[in-house]
């Protein structure tokens, strides 16, 4: 963490975008979304939905997600739960929340496991709340609505 200050600057910049202090800038910008999921086909689907309004980066594991966030903090992180480990998505969410640099980045947990499992995770004392939970399969319109609520509507490509 040599460039701690740089990161904070970027992160602060992102939160400014989110807080909507400059609506025009917010409307014009295509926010960056990081999608972490080990299912390449699902990532391709989600990617093509989101690319209609946002910049999308994809990774296939929790550690890659953390590295990618550190390298260039995105405006939103979408995490699968079960990747290499049972609760990998939750672990990543916790690391992001506990770090000063990344604690303000909104997180969506997008999981194939059912509500019972989610509820069980919620009573876990190490639980860190995400901004939103969604279950697979995901409705494209619903995903765009949720993402729009967190980082703004984005903009079509090339605008």
């Amino acid at each position: 963490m040599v460039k701690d200050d740089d990161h904070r600057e970027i992160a602060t910049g992102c939160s400014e975008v989110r807080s909507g202090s400059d609506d025009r800038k917010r409307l014009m910008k295509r926010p960056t979304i990081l999608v972490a999921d080990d299912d390449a086909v699902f990532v391709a689907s989600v990617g093509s939905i989101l690319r209609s309004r946002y910049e999308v980066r994809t990774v296939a594991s929790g550690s890659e997600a953390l590295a990618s966030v550190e390298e260039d903090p995105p405006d939103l992180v979408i995490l699968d739960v079960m990747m290499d480990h049972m609760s990998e998505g939750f672990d990543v969410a916790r690391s992001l929340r506990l770090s000063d640099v990344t604690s303000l980045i909104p997180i969506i947990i997008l999981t194939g496991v059912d509500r019972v499992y989610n509820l069980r995770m919620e009573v876990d004392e190490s639980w860190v709340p995400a901004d939103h939970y969604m279950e697979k399969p995901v409705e494209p319109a619903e995903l765009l609505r949720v993402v729009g609520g967190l980082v703004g509507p984005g903009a079509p490509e090339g605008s």
Partner: protein
Amino acid sequence: MSGAGERSGSFSFIFAWELHERLLWFSNLRWLAVAGLAVVSLLGPMVGMVATRPSLMVVAGLVATYNLVFVYALRYRYGPEEDYGNLRTVAILQMVTDLAALLVTVHFTGGCASPVLPFVVFHMAIGTIMIETRIMYFLAFSTCFAAAGLFACEHLGVLERYPSVTGAQSSLASCGLSTAMLVGLVFGIVYLTDSVTSRFKTRNIELHQTTTELRRSLDEREELERRKSHYMRISAHQLRSPLGTIKTSIQVLLDGYLDPGSDEGLRLLGGTARRVDSLLDIVNDLLELAKMREGRVKAPWARNVSINQILADIFDAADPSAREADVELVPHFIHEGAAILDWAVPPDLVYAFENVIHNAIKYSKPEGGTVTVALGIDRTHAMVVVADEGIGIPADLQDDVFLEFVRAPNAKHAEAEGTGLGLSIVREAAQMHGGKVSLESAEGLGTTVTVVLPLHYVPPEIIDGRSR
């Protein structure tokens, strides 16, 4: 009585909690004795027992006092959970104090002519029901000895002789006779009670054992049920996951986020088709497992099945995929003798060995390597060893990979396809042929799977069919 077995730490012929129950019952009866003593004390002089007032009132008071102590002890100090030995001590103490009180009463109501003398017999019967017979014989002996001593002292004038009913005082002869009768009755009643109850005591032990066994098998059943429903839940999850992906892909194409005709759209369609394939693989493997686990009476058991032949066929079929993966297949079994199983279900064995050999090829390193299949035979067993030089299995997962849907992370990275059911099927097939499967692996170096099958195993289905 749920948990009766656990309720007693130790156990002779009755449970501690049973003894506790009887001791409490006996203590409740004792209040009747207190009342009886009081009545005799008051009415005794009217029928000639002039010494009963106030002596027996004092005895009644003493009995009431120690009974209170016993009831208190049984209710608050020695519960039903108490150690059997401690409760037995309480029982013996009760017997001894009762017999002492009874002998004092006998003394004041006319010694060997006393009308309360036969009550000794009640105590002996009750005691024999509660505690071990050998202890009761000892108590019977002590009681007779004490009673004889009491009568002797009365006759020798050491103790005063009080009149019995109608003021009678017995002669030496009649006193000797009643002493002899007392001895006979006391020992007789211990013997009789023991003979009558010994069968119940044996039953009690048998019942205890049966109950314990039943409870254990019930626990096993519950555990099995629990595992089954867990398995169903896991299976449903495993099916749901590719379905979620498939549904999302279709929706993306339907809603026009991707043009199905574009390169990207075609790639997504291809990926989706592969997900459908893996879904089918999972369903097929689940069906295969279910089939093996049903313990089918109609399983296609065949005689004299050659493992050499099965392995050779699989080798032929696996050759192209091995070549594609730069893997050299080394058959080490050709020159070994023939491994012939008396009984086997060939399709299941094929499925299992296919799984092992395909795994070895599939999880070889990208640069290839060798997969060696060795066959060893002795008089009773055949052993198939499949060794690869592949990615290996992390040490902490080597036991778990036999469980359904467990796949090591490095396996998932190396090969997206895989149902996580292969090794479960291998283990199931081995077990159904009376054999077992084991695994040795070092991550990054390779995995060795060993299947041992007995040559002369006769499946239960066949034995049942024969005996019928």
